[in-house]
């Protein structure tokens, strides 16, 4: 296709480039602050020695998790796209919830199902088929990652499939495409544009996964580089080594990200929600129902277990003043960081939509989006802490700002994976008309992009909001008894033998997340449709 002239929409290009530069600078500043601070302390030197081994195990685990997550995500999206049933929108709303819950919650949900005393074993025990503690180990790590990320990729894929223009579907139907042809000719090209971004995000998440790997890993045999970095900081206080290891991790992740973000096929298909429903033939639809039921059981059972375990104690938690304080803090921070994440995602996405496939700029604009995920959490939070000290503000005063910023940046890859492909598709599809009519950048947004982007933007907002709602990484360095979020409160309850309180807070978090995932996209669909 004819390219977009490189001097078109300079405003969007500058804004995108500045955002990318700012994020990259921030990461550099965090690392430099840490490295400089590290020079002040005598250290016995880091005792992290087995870096090669750690890299190999992390990469293997992450690659397996990514491939399986994408495949299950596709299967889920394919069945959900074809089937219509009561409660479908709730199921779709539930799909991303696992991803954004504190990992602690997901681990306990998984164990409630698959653990030694879990539901599966309780059902299988009379048959003499107990699975014992098989959830612990590499298999358990991968299972947990697939539950988290498979659901997320499914969610993105469903949105992409739903956006296939109805004329294409009508054409396919009149040509009498079989199920396989339909999938390869119509669905796959639509999904292909999203796969690299989603896969890169999932890979990074699994590569840097910390609590899940530690809890389900069964011990030091399954560990990630992230854990080693934690050791270098906490035990050895060798900040120089921590920075070097963080850079190693960044480089390895860059080797994954750069090809993924440069070479990803350009999204070419995009329309408003098509309201055409084209189900599969009866025998296939029946098979799809079975597949969907099995997948959903795997994905939703852990969440239902979390609800079931915590539901009884919710009343006790609701009367605690600290709970409401933490809830308010969580909501405010979640809202603000979601808005920030969307703003950053839109700025980068718009600029990237103007770049030709495979161009250097495309990589440059894509990298900051993911880079933040590749920086170890302990390095991030310490770096932020140091930067906060440099500004001369008390940690208590900057805590809200850091939380908002850090959570927005953490959610950025998800936001980007959600809104960049449709933005790009719109630009590619309409740029000639827009240029020919001399439509301004603002009107392009308000008349063309915004009305069609309601769903992805709504979902991106929801995911960013809930991401920060479930954050347990950043808050752990900035939380105090006065300044606390719901996950922090939950973690503290666990640390004080108050398992019931913790389970109740987990259930509350889950309910709020599901509500956010269902209501926010709906609200945006309404907002945008009202202007159609």
């Amino acid at each position, binding site marked *: 296709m004819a390219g977009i002239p490189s001097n078109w929409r300079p405003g969007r290009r500058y804004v995108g480039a500045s955002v990318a530069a700012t994020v990259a600078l921030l990461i550099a500043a965090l690392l430099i602050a840490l490295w400089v601070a590290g020079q*002040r*302390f005598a250290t*016995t030197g880091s*005792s992290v020695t087995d870096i090669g081994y750690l890299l190999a195990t992390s990469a293997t685990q992450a690659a397996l998790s990514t491939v399986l997550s994408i495949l299950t995500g596709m299967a889920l999206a394919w069945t959900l796209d074809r089937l219509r049933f009561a409660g479908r929108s709730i199921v779709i709303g539930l799909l991303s919830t696992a991803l954004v819950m504190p990992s*602690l919650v997901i*681990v*306990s949900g998984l*164990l*409630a199902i698959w*653990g*030694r*005393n879990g539901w599966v074993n309780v059902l299988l025990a009379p048959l003499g088929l107990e699975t*014992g*503690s098989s959830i*612990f180990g590499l298999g358990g790590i991968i299972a947990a990652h697939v539950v988290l990320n498979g659901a997320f990729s499914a969610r993105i894929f469903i949105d992409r499939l739903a956006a296939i223009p109805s004329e294409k579907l009508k054409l396919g139907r009149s040509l009498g495409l079989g199920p396989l042809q339909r999938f390869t000719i119509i669905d796959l090209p639509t999904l292909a544009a999203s796969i690299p971004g989603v896969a890169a995000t999932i890979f990074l998440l699994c590569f840097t996964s910390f*609590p899940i790997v*530690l*809890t*389900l*890993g*069964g*011990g*030091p*045999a399954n560990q990630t580089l992230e854990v080693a970095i934690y*050791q270098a900081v*906490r*035990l*050895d*206080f060798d900040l120089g080594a921590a920075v070097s290891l963080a850079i190693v991790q960044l480089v390895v992740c860059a080797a994954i990200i750069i090809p993924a973000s440069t070479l990803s096929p350009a999204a070419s298909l995009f329309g408003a929600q098509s309201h055409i429903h084209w189900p599969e033939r009866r025998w296939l639809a029946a098979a799809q129902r079975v597949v969907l039921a099995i997948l959903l059981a795997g994905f939703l059972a852990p969440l239902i277990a979390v609800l079931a375990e915590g539901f009884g104690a919710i009343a006790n938690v609701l009367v605690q003043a*600290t709970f409401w304080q933490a809830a*308010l*803090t969580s909501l*405010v921070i979640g*809202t*603000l960081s979601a*808005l920030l994440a969307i703003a950053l995602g839109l700025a980068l996405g718009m600029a990237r939509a103007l770049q030709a496939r495979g161009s250097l700029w495309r990589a440059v604009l894509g990298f900051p989006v993911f880079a933040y995920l590749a920086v170890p959490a302990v390095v991030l939070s310490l770096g932020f*802490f*140091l930067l906060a*000290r440099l500004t001369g503000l*008390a*940690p*208590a*005063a900057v*805590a*809200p*700002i850091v939380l908002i910023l850090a959570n927005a940046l953490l959610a950025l890859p998800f936001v980007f994976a959600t809104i960049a492909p449709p933005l790009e598709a719109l630009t590619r599809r309409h740029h000639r008309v827009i240029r020919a009519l001399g439509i301004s950048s603002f009107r392009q947004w308000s008349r063309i992009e915004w009305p069609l982007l309601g769903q992805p933007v709504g979902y991106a907002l929801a995911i960013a909001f809930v991401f920060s709602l479930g954050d347990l990484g950043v808050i*752990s*360095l900035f*939380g*105090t*008894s006065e*300044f606390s979020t719901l996950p922090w409160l939950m*973690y*503290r309850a*666990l*640390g*004080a*033998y*108050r*398992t019931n309180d913790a389970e109740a807070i987990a259930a509350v978090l889950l309910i709020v997340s599901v509500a956010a995932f269902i209501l926010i996209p709906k609200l945006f669909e309404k907002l945008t449709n009202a202007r159609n």
Partner: protein
Amino acid sequence: MRKLMIASVRTSLCAVVLGALALPAIAQDNPTLTVYTYDAFAADWGPGPALKQGFEAQCECTLDFVSANDSISALRRAQLEGDATDADIILGLDTATIGEGKATGLFTEHQLDLPDFDIPLEWTDDVFVPFDYGYFAFVYDSQSLSTPPTSFEELIALPDDFKIVIQDPRSSTPGLGLILWIKALYGEGAVDIWEGLAPHVLTVTSGWSESYDLFLSGEADMVLSYTTSPAYHLIAEDEDRYRAARFDAGHYTQIEVAGILASSPNQELARDFLAYLVTPEGQAPLPETNWMYPVLEPQGGLNPGFAEMIDPQPALLLDAEEVTANTRAWIEEAFSTLR
């Protein structure tokens, strides 16, 4: 509607930020004593609030607890901040990490005449003041396990599907405690004990909370915790099914300590607080919020529930300098068996 929401969010956030900035201004006539500690200590259900109330009633000052994930993180945070740190006291290091603390050079001598402590050793340290103590032990559920093992050898001899859950020594105090416990008992032979334990280790969690949760949900038969953990279930939940398994060869001791930073402008006040911490009044909240033994008879006596805990004698403790010098090597030795 959305505009309104954003506006109200903005005002509440400003309130949060301004509130945080205004706090020091309100308390200007009173000095503020800042104690960095681990989170469970500062939490609402920890000892922090009661100590704050008790000490502020007599000191004409404001006592603030600032919490980090764990005591080592609190120490690292003060280290990073250098002379600019707000911390006057770091509270929560223990006998296994005192050496790390001293190596930072941040602390100054407490210069207090300490009372006679009721702890398993003669306290001679000039820098740190002990405030509570406990012993590491494996906790089990007596409803599903009738005869718990009484030694590491017995534990190793159990079938492979008998699972224990332990913590990562690099991020958790009990996790490090187990390394030292086995080392104190077996010395050179520690690695063989770890070899034997390996098949029983269900998983190694990063913190105590995750592991205890795994145990409570029935994933493991025993969890590495404290001899006093059952006291919580007994006193707070009226539940006596959880017990600590008594090992005849003895249990490793953990004494928690607090120390004053040399950079603190409030040396006098900091000393007052440490002195208060080791009075019967200061000790009173500790047993039933921190679930450890007090270092001397607390005001109002010790809850009789504690009398039902196992006798941990002989209490084991390695020399602090030896621990600091060898911690990494011992962790490496233990972990090599788990890979």
